[in-house]
């Protein structure tokens, strides 16, 4: 069934050339039935089965792209504050866009779908957490808007009321003055002045009351919401204090050597002689430090695989000091004696 004619009210706005729309299945056109509505099947976009949704965009490709983007964004919903740096966030956005692009343009469709699904299953928790976060944010935003509207309304009303009261006061004052002038035979100018003062006094008390009300209103806005809900702006998400365990003075760093174990003493004539010389002992020269360094320099090459190092890039260390040093060496600048000038 492709003809879903909806007769409940006329369509809101007509697109240009709408009359030419023809249903590909039953060939009925809007020309004959202006109330007929064309719906889109979000599964395939070109064949009409039994699943329909209202079309938003004229271009069916755009319609499809928006749907895909929505689907991907529901899964890849990380936020900037999840990342250590803007660069990381941008890289993430780039990866997501790659997947989206592939899905839209049907490139490596299976692979992209698999990526999407595996990410979704692996990150269920963060995904739902971020969904909640955005939900909370939009609720807060709505609540704030409602509150602001309400306050604006109250202010408007108060202003109108004040205007009316002032008008009434002024009229009453004038009436009083006239009455007094009529009933008594005192000084006319004095009576007029007194009357004015009375009006002034009344308007002052009123203004004070309004101010008080406004203060109450603004303090209300900082932590209260109208419809019974209570929300506070600018709250930091409370971090549960974690048990950090005993303090580690080394903070995870270790002095374990991978390729050798150092002995307490090495039979080595060169060192034995010096170890007895006060020039070394009294200055505190540490022969263990020397042995440790010698062993380290002898064996550390075992852990170096140049092939790996060349391909691996360390994002935390963007510069390449070694490259420059190597370039310098390559340029033949051997003028500085690098070995031991200190």
């Amino acid at each position, binding site marked *: 069934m492709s003809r879903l004619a909806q007769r409940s009210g006329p369509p809101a706005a007509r697109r240009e050339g709408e009359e030419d729309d023809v249903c590909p299945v039953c060939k009925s056109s809007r020309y004959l039935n202006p109330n007929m509505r064309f719906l889109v099947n979000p599964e395939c976009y070109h064949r009409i089965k039994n699943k329909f949704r209202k079309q938003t965009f004229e271009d069916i490709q755009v319609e499809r792209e928006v749907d895909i983007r929505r689907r991907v964004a529901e899964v890849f919903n990380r936020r900037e504050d999840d990342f250590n740096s803007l660069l990381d966030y941008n890289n993430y956005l780039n990866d997501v866009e790659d997947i989206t692009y592939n899905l839209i343009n049907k490139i490596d469709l299976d692979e992209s779908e698999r990526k999407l699904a595996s990410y979704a299953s692996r990150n269920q928790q963060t995904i739902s957490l971020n969904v909640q976060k955005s939900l909370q944010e939009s609720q807060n935003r709505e609540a704030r808007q409602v509150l602001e509207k309400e306050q604006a309304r109250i202010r408007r009303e108060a202003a109108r009321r004040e205007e009316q009261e002032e008008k009434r006061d002024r009229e009453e004052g004038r009436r009083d003055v006239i009455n007094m002038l009529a009933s008594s035979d005192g000084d006319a100018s004095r009576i007029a002045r007194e009357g004015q003062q009375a009006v002034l006094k009344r308007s002052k008390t009123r203004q004070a009351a309004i101010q008080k009300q406004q203060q109450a209103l603004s303090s209300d806005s900082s932590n209260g919401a109208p419809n019974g809900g209570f929300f506070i702006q600018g709250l930091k998400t409370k971090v549960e204090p974690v048990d950090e365990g005993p*303090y580690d*003075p*080394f903070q995870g760093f270790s002095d374990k050597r991978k390729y050798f174990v150092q002995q307490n003493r090495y039979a080595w004539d060169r060192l034995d002689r010096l170890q007895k010389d006060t020039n070394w002992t009294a200055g*505190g*020269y*540490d022969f263990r430090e020397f042995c440790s360094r010698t062993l380290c320099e002898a064996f550390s090459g075992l852990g170096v695989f140049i092939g790996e190092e060349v391909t691996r890039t360390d994002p935390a260390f963007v510069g390449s000091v070694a490259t*420059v040093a190597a370039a310098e060496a390559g340029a033949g600048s051997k003028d500085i004696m*690098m070995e031991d000038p*200190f």
Partner: protein
Amino acid sequence: MAMSPTETVAPSSNTKNTVVRTKPPKAPQTSNSSATNHDKPRTAPAPQLFESLNDEEKRKYVKDKQVGKGTYADVFVGHFASSPSTKIAIKKIRFNADFKDGISMDTIREIRALQELRHPNIIALYSVFSSKNQNLNLVLEYCPRGDLMELIRDTDNVHYGTADIKAWMGMLCRAVWFCHENFILHRDIKPNNLLIAADGELKLADFGLARSFAEPETRMTYNMTTRFYRPPELFYQARHYSGVVDVWSVGCVMAELVLRFPFIQGDTDIETANKISETIGTPTEDNWPGVTQLKAYLAPTNVVPVKRKPFYMDLFSSLGSSGVDLMMSMFALDPRKRATSKQVLQHEWWQQEPRPSRKEDLPKRGGGVEVMGDDLKRRGGELPAEGRADKVARKIDFGAMKK
């Protein structure tokens, strides 16, 4: 085809930045192609390779604003070209005609040491490149919160407790231990070489006096370390010493954190050496076998016995008994008896109450980028001039002592 040799060696054919690279020579006419090809000097490629690598490196960083200016170096704040929010400090070292190739020893020492070291408590060196006039640029980690000296000296506005001292000491000791573990002596540890990063982390900086552990036969220079923080063996001109020279300085910083002024002060080197003798105890053959053999050892006129724990407890009671034990182990006169940086970290003080403050809770003070600029532009061994402290040279004048 008449391909010039430069073409084949030209690097970074995969990079997009080819702006500054010198143009490859034009392809010669076919008629005399073989002749021109042979005339081409074969040494040409090397400087090109270097220049293009350098340019490529240089373009990764952007200088924003100058924050320090000195005779030795200028300091700028900048950012990564690829990530404008990631800030960096660029230390531009001026070409110095006094030295061969225009590069001072301090610069070479600093680059050599920092190239080796990557640790959260050691200032990171991201890169080195040269700019015009052969000035050398060191791209360093950004430390916008001033230095530890600012915090120590600002007694009116900055208040801190034992937990904070413990946290700073922990970071400092880790940095020193890591240097030693990588066979590097810092030799200039003092509060104004301890910069504070945006997240509160302490960063050991200024490796201008650093060197790697020496071979046993190599004679090291003794005129190192700013005077107030210099260990006794260096005053006595020892030529063969070890990592514990830094541990003495760490002890001085620890004491200064509590007292809020330098623990051992003197206007001259001799005065400072005498101050050690008075404050800690007089070095003798009994407490330091062999000390009298050291070149500049001076027989004391009056011998002050080595101070015992009650003396330290009076001054540093806030550190607690075990904190005082740790400090005393760092102030051992005989370097062989002094705690190593590893032993310092293994001390029980770290496990005792109070637990070190978290870095985000540590007291801070504005001072900021200007202080960092001021600290980085200085050469090793100098104390900051004008108002921040007396000017203290790092050379020892023993001429007066000998008379």
